């Protein structure tokens, strides 16, 4: 029923998972089968999710393109739209426009080691590419995931973390900030940059994907540089304020780039050429 760029697909909330305080994951199914049949996306892309009457909000698609028939999004209750989303029940219909933006160039990473570094609520935009890599595991060498949050309760995707922990072909390191641990916590205690320095694989033939709050990224990048990672081998995904998602509304314009069109995925080398307006 797409009759303009702004017309959303209607999506039914099939499943709601509470990930952490104020953080939920929705599994969304297309209401109209023909919409589902023509829909496809790639890891790294995002969409505009809407509650009719409250408005639209931008998140990455958090599920992998290798898992067909649904998409997932994970969001924290923070503003008007995310609060309205959080108030939705299973079976409710919401809007979705997308997919928009560029992708993680996972096809170019064949034969390489992958190092995923995420902090807090920034695991969701990376979960898509992690599952994409794990579902095509034979294409990659070592896979390392470093995931940190303020406290144990702030870690999202707890079942999947257990799943990754159990896999022999994934090295998962979880950490919480000092003071955020529980008595039975078996992971690391410390900030993400420190843990990365301790557990990161050699930079040789390795791609690093980093997503997290600005302060985590700020202190992780020098660590990666020290470990020998080149800027063009460090990827991140930006989260500028957006409205349209396709390069018209002007909100996410940074320098000559539109985060929605040229991103959201950028290498550190690309970001160095951009004004510091993200």
């Amino acid at each position: 029923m797409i009759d303009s760029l702004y017309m959303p697909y209607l999506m039914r909330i099939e499943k709601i998972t509470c990930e952490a305080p104020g953080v939920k994951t929705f599994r969304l199914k297309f209401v109209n089968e023909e919409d589902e049949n023509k829909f496809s996306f790639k890891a790294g892309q995002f969409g505009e999710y809407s509650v009719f009457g409250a408005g639209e909000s931008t998140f990455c698609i958090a599920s992998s393109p290798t898992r067909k028939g649904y998409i997932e999004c994970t969001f924290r209750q923070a503003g008007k739209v995310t609060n309205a989303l959080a108030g939705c029940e299973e079976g409710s219909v919401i809007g979705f426009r997308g997919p928009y933006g560029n992708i993680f160039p996972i096809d170019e990473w064949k034969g390489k080691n992958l190092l995923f570094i995420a902090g807090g609520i920034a695991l969701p935009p990376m979960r898509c590419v992690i599952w994409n890599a794990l579902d095509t595991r034979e294409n990659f060498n070592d896979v390392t995931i470093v995931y940190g949050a303020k406290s144990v309760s702030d870690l999202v995707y707890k079942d999947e973390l257990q799943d990754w922990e159990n896999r022999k072909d994934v090295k998962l390191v979880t950490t919480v900030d000092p003071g955020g641990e529980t008595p039975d916590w078996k992971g690391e205690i410390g900030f993400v940059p420190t843990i990365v320095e301790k557990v990161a694989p050699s930079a040789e033939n390795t791609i690093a994907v980093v997503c997290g709050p600005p302060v985590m990224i700020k202190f992780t990048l020098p660590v990666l540089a020290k470990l020998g990672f080149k800027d063009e081998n460090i990827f991140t995904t930006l989260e500028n304020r957006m409205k349209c998602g396709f390069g018209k509304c002007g909100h996410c314009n940074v320098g000559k780039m539109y985060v929605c069109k040229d991103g959201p995925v950028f290498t550190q080398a690309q970001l160095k050429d951009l004004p510091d307006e993200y």
Partner: protein
Amino acid sequence: MNIERRLVRKNSLEKLFEILKQNKKSVFAPVVKNGKASFKTVESFSTVAEDYIQTTQSSKELVFPRVEKFLDYEKNGKDVSVKGFDYQNVPDTVLWGVRPCDTIGFGALNSIFNWDYKDEIYNARLAKTTILSFSCNKSDEYCFCTSVGGNPGSTAGSDILFTKLGADGDYLAEVITEKGQAIVALAPGLFEKADTADKEKYLADVPVKFNQKEISERLEKFFKSEKWVEASLKCLGCGACAFVCPTCACFDIQDEEHGKTGSRMRCWDSCGYAQFTVHTSGHNPRSVQSQRWRQRIMHKFSYMPERLSVYGCTGCGRCSRACPADMNILEHLISIQEVKL
């Protein structure tokens, strides 16, 4: 197509207007009220302003309305039904009396709305619009179209351009497009042959004030200049400059709810607003006004030329006329040209 030159007698304009109305065209034309000209949907030729330099608002609202409804929805329990944009109701419109600095602006809007994804709603409105522009016989100190590639008699973006040949003269009508020819076909008797009429001597004299290409090249190295702070100290962040601009097209998308029904719409927005870039977390990539003023100038004179091959300024001068703090874009651009790099 080649431009066809025709002569329209001064007292034939009213007949043309009436024929347009008889053909069920909506006519959007400048009307003067309390000394200010603004575009309105007009029914009678007597209300159309002729002697004005510039309207306060540009005519962009015809193709990019201040509020554009994308869809209506109705909630029924957990289900929602949605009705999309009503293309049938886009009126067949003649934009009458617009200046060349606005018609050139449609080129910039076309690029923004079509450079990648095609905006069907914008395109539907433009397709139903015929642009009858009028050359400028006079200008004021805010005008600088000739510095940004335009001129008071430019045909760019128009379907027919009328130029008044002398204070009490007839009009040269330059028929530029097929849409323009379709208007001539409605009233062929009003468009006489005009072989010798020379419009140039009747046009306003708008001197060139800066070199646009040089400004663009300078801006590449100017991002970190302290001039931005100095130039924007007066800025209130009111966004008036963006609202009156013929090429500013930034927008917000908002829902309006009335019980179980409501609609989603886009509304004009401005990069001059603090909220334009603020994240839900509170982080604001452009947290101070000088960064936002810089974005406005960089976007128009550096980013758009590079990405869209079109400038985001037509030299209409509206932003300077409208600014409540008396900021002047022309003075600012000249000062950028004069700075030693």
